[in-house]
């Protein structure tokens, strides 16, 4: 529905920020974001506007949430089997030759 891309704020000039999107820089407008944004903050960009300031700790929290789901599933034999398969599978970086 809406392509949202996270990026890191490099510089703020009034209602505009220069944001680094994993190596590509672009200006992003700050008109609609509901918190003050400073260099170093992460924002979610949609069509050239920051729509949300992403609190860094919550990235870790989300990942922890998923780990919990996995641990719940761990008791299941099927899941354990699949995990075994994954561990046994060739490492992706080696490509099709592996």
């Amino acid at each position, binding site marked *: *529905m*809406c*392509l*949202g891309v*996270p*990026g*890191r704020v490099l510089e703020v000039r009034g209602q505009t920020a220069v944001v*680094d*999107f*994993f*190596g590509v820089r672009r200006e992003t*407008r700050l*008109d*609609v*974001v*509901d918190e003050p944004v400073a260099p170093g903050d*992460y924002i*979610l960009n*949609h*069509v*050239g*506007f920051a*729509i*949300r300031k*992403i*609190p860094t700790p*919550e*990235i870790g*929290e*989300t*990942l922890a*949430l*998923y780990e919990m*789901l*996995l641990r*719940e*599933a761990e008791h*299941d034999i*099927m*899941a354990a*089997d*699949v*995990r075994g*398969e*994954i*561990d046994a599978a060739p490492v*992706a*970086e080696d490509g099709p030759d592996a």
Partner: protein
Amino acid sequence: MPETAVPSAVDELKFRDPAKARALAAALGKVTREVGHAPVSVMHVCGSHEQAIAKFGLRTILPKGLNVIMGPGCPVCVTDLPEVDEAVVLAQDGKIIASYGDMLKVPGTAQSLADAQALGGRIEVVYSAAQAVELARDTTDDVVFFASGFETTAVATAAVALGDVPPNFSILSAHKYIPPVMEIVAEMPDSRVEGFLAAGHAAAITGWKIFERFVEKHRVPVVVAGFEPLDILAGLVKLIELVRDGTPRVENMFPRCVTPDGNRNAQRQLWRVFRTQGGRWRGIAHVPNGNLRLRDEFAHLDARSRYPIDLRRLWTHAPSALTQVCICGEIMAGLNAPENCPLFGKECVPESPVGACMVSSEGTCKIWYQYGGHPEL
């Protein structure tokens, strides 16, 4: 291979870990079996979810007993013929049309914007509403911003309307508002949908509490999920757990972007500029309050008030007989699959789409055509 050295990239890649994805898929298989009937049908109402499901090949690892239906989550697909026609007529009248790239190939009654461009119309692809304003500043000709997308995207249009714009700039709003159409889908008599996966980026604006009334009314769970492979899989695990337990409630599985109340600043700007209005969504139905239109106090920015737009001159052609056969509506309502459409992959292909589902990169039919629906790969 080049390294992704930037820290934010590393964070994002964690959400694409193949081993974790497979483990989550296994967990999903387990909860799906525990529901006790098959298939379990859930719907996502977000084209970007489908885009991610397709892009990362997630359908090949989803459990067999789980039916993830694509709902009316693509704003490009549901933009109605007359809305495209309005933009085409304005292009024919010599206005510069600034449009998001997504809208260019969407068929209107007679032409798409890409057709209008091939016939001499001036169509500029922009990435941001702010760029459409810049475009107007750099010319003395009239620039009409063909504003498409759901409320998330409408927020950007609102911000532009509230800012400083040159007199030759106006807005043709085709924005859509998603909550009303969820009601329509949930109330469809043939609906088999047992739970909804809600779009994380729209919820970043509206907040997740907006779904509470919906859950109460329809007694189906709603899970807000993000767009990385792990986000989607984890969102589905949580949703099926709620289905299994018979506990309809809203769960937010995208806390890094979504809060209970959303972005109030964005909401304020959105509703200052726009009001809802009933209107047809292509292939779905008349959706009460489904369209976002400029309020009267912004009439000076509204292309519909500023220019006479005579659509009748496009309607010298009878509507295509093919469009009568098209089952886009049933597909977007989750009642049918592209492979059951007699036109799919034959008369209707991405190069010459009949229905809008074949146009947008997040249209159900195009995604199935490009990525294969349930491929045995």
